[in-house]
């Protein structure tokens, strides 16, 4: 396989709004118009776009632009730092994505009211609110302000549609804490809980109890990625990346995608699952253990369903009887998860995936060949599969 994207990708469309001192419309509208004009110039439809890349300074998030411009599901989205320095890097990242098949059609964009809104040269930020600020206002101004409450809204609907109960969510907590109890690095080392403890823990946001919610952690986690060839010359057993994918599904919002037809699933994770199985050539039966993102217990159930470990609505049965604990059919979060070990926004889970492949986990699952690791739920998300070097 060639390791260069050079001469493999092209810029097929360009589009811009007029350039003025007072656009008379929102920054979001400018971004949406520019994206649509570029797509039209390329002779494509908005739904063909499956990647977006922009600057960290951009106020219009990829999901707001995707929603506004009516783009399709996104399998690639990235933001690049350092102001104007990011400009050609958007092309580089788009090229990497397209050359590797991560996405077929990536749009690079940047839009703002730099003169009539916040004057870029003035420093301090004031003026027209950002599209992300407006998006948050639809929930925060009604008192829906915390991650637990955002997730609880999905959980309540999931319970209503599939008959899952708080005790079902509790099984995730019990499994995580059981695994944390034997992991000396875990915050909750030697502190397992019972389902009764879970049910008796106080309400945070009904229907979520305290023990449905992960802790907050101070810490850091880093990973080194290189070629398999190079890794083979290095000291550790190789953890091969069999697949890695992003997903942002239609109607995506940050934590509050309440406006889709169905809110009892996690379509962005379904999008990740589809890509991971395609990239790796694997399926649910090939996974011996998984690190399933667990900032809040309910979304663990939906993720198991989106990856096809069980059917929609049947995760409550799948996780019962110790099936997700060590010794069960699919032990999950063998480090204790974010509920038990630490909440490093999923990065510590990837490390546990590596340890399982290296066969060095304190809660080692026998004969591990492939580990699924998922990332944050409720937001545009990602996942990867790590495998032993065959």
């Amino acid at each position, binding site marked *: 396989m060639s390791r260069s994207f050079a001469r493999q990708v092209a810029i097929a469309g360009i589009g811009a709004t007029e350039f003025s001192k007072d656009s008379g*419309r*929102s920054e*979001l*509208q400018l971004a*949406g*118009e520019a994206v*649509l004009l570029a797509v039209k110039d390329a002779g494509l439809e*908005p739904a063909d776009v499956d990647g977006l890349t922009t600057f960290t300074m951009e106020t219009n998030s990829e999901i707001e632009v995707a*929603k*506004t*411009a*009516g783009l399709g599901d996104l399998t690639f989205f990235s933001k690049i730092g350092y102001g104007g320095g990011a400009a050609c890097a958007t092309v580089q990242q788009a090229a990497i994505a397209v050359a590797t098949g991560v996405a077929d059609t990536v749009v690079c964009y940047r839009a703002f009211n730099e003169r009539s809104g916040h004057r870029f040269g003035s420093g301090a930020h004031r003026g*027209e*609110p*950002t*599209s992300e*600020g*407006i*998006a*948050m*206002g*639809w*929930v*925060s*101004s*009604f*008192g*829906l*302000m*915390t991650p637990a*409450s955002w997730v*609880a*809204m*999905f959980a*309540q*609907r999931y319970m*209503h549609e599939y008959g899952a109960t708080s005790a079902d969510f509790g099984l995730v907590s019990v499994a995580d804490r059981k695994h944390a109890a034997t992991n000396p690095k875990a915050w909750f080392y030697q502190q397992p809980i019972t389902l009764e403890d879970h049910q008796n823990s*106080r*309400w*945070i*946001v*009904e*229907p*979520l109890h305290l023990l449905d919610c992960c802790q907050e952690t101070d810490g850091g986690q880093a990973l080194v990625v290189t070629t398999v060839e190079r890794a083979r010359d290095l000291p550790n057993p190789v953890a091969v990346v069999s697949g890695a994918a992003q997903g942002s599904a239609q109607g995506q919002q940050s934590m*509050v995608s*309440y*406006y889709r037809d169905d*809110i009892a699933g996690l379509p962005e994770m379904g999008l990740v699952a589809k890509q991971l199985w395609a990239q790796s050539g694997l399926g649910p039966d090939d996974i011996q253990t998984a690190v399933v993102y667990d900032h809040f217990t309910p979304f663990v159930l939906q993720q198991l369903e989106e990856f096809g470990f069980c059917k929609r609505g049947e995760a409550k049965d799948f996780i019962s009887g110790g099936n997700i604990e060590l010794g069960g059919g699919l032990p999950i979060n063998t480090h204790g998860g974010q509920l038990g070990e630490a909440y490093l926004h999923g990065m510590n889970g990837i490390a546990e995936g590596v340890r399982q492949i290296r066969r060095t986990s304190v809660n080692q699952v026998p004969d591990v060949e492939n580990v699924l690791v998922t990332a944050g739920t409720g937001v545009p998300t990602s996942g990867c599969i790590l495998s032993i070097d065959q």
Partner: protein
Amino acid sequence: MTNSAALIAEARTHLGGPPGPLRVGRDPVNLPMVHHWCQALDDQNQAYLDEEFAAETRGHLIAPPGMLQTWTMDAPRGAELMGSNDHVNRLLDEAGYTSVVAVNYEHEYVRELQHGERISVRSSAEDLSEEKKTGLGLGYFTTVKHEYLTDDGEVIGIGRMRLLKFKPPAAAPEVGARPTPAIGRDNQFFWDGVQAGELRIGSCNACQTLHHPPQPICRACGSTDMGHTVSTGKGVVYSHVTHHYPKLQGVELPHTVLLVELEEGVRLVSEWATAAKPETTYVGQQVQVSFTPVPGGELRPTFTAVS
């Protein structure tokens, strides 16, 4: 029996008990005070003010009956002797019902008063209600009987004053003002609608697709010609949560947040109108929009349950 219940039971033993000491009015019934009264109340009854008319009809000037209480208002009070009503009030205070508000005052007039008569009053406890839940707080209605007498002991009027002795409710926790929504070009119409008492939904003028939250470009047809329609405000609860922890600025806890599906087919996050929060919240509950203030006083589109 709780301490409070014991105190109330003791208070009841004083009902119908002996009145406190007689309090003697400082001045006898007199024309200058009648003048003040009549002027204040714009009462021009000739029997109070015109000596000739009064002589013909009553034989002499009389005092307005309504002045009954005024003749003893500044009567000196002996602090050492307590009547049955003082005991009732003391016991209610001890039980925590420390605040007081007058409810009503009834007078019975036995005969008309003439100038020069000196009036005294004695007061006793007549009635004490069961505990009542009132808008001011939990409390007891007490009835005090005031007997008005002349110097020779003739009862010339009776006043019954009903008071509410109540527990001042704990001051509402100071939660601060609810965060203000960010308002920009793309959602100004929605919040203007809230001020106008309308629940507005973004709609595409080209293809009529509805959008909530609104957006500047139609996701269905790409048009930038966006308008809005006014919702009927009828919908059902699609999902809901009740927030307990942590404390939030501008939110009284526990706080129920609703995800309402409007009959037009779009959903929005909202909450119960403060004064109309039902006992239970459930998926499928029928609701209707109303525009009510949240802590800090800003209006929000809120919902009430429809039976």
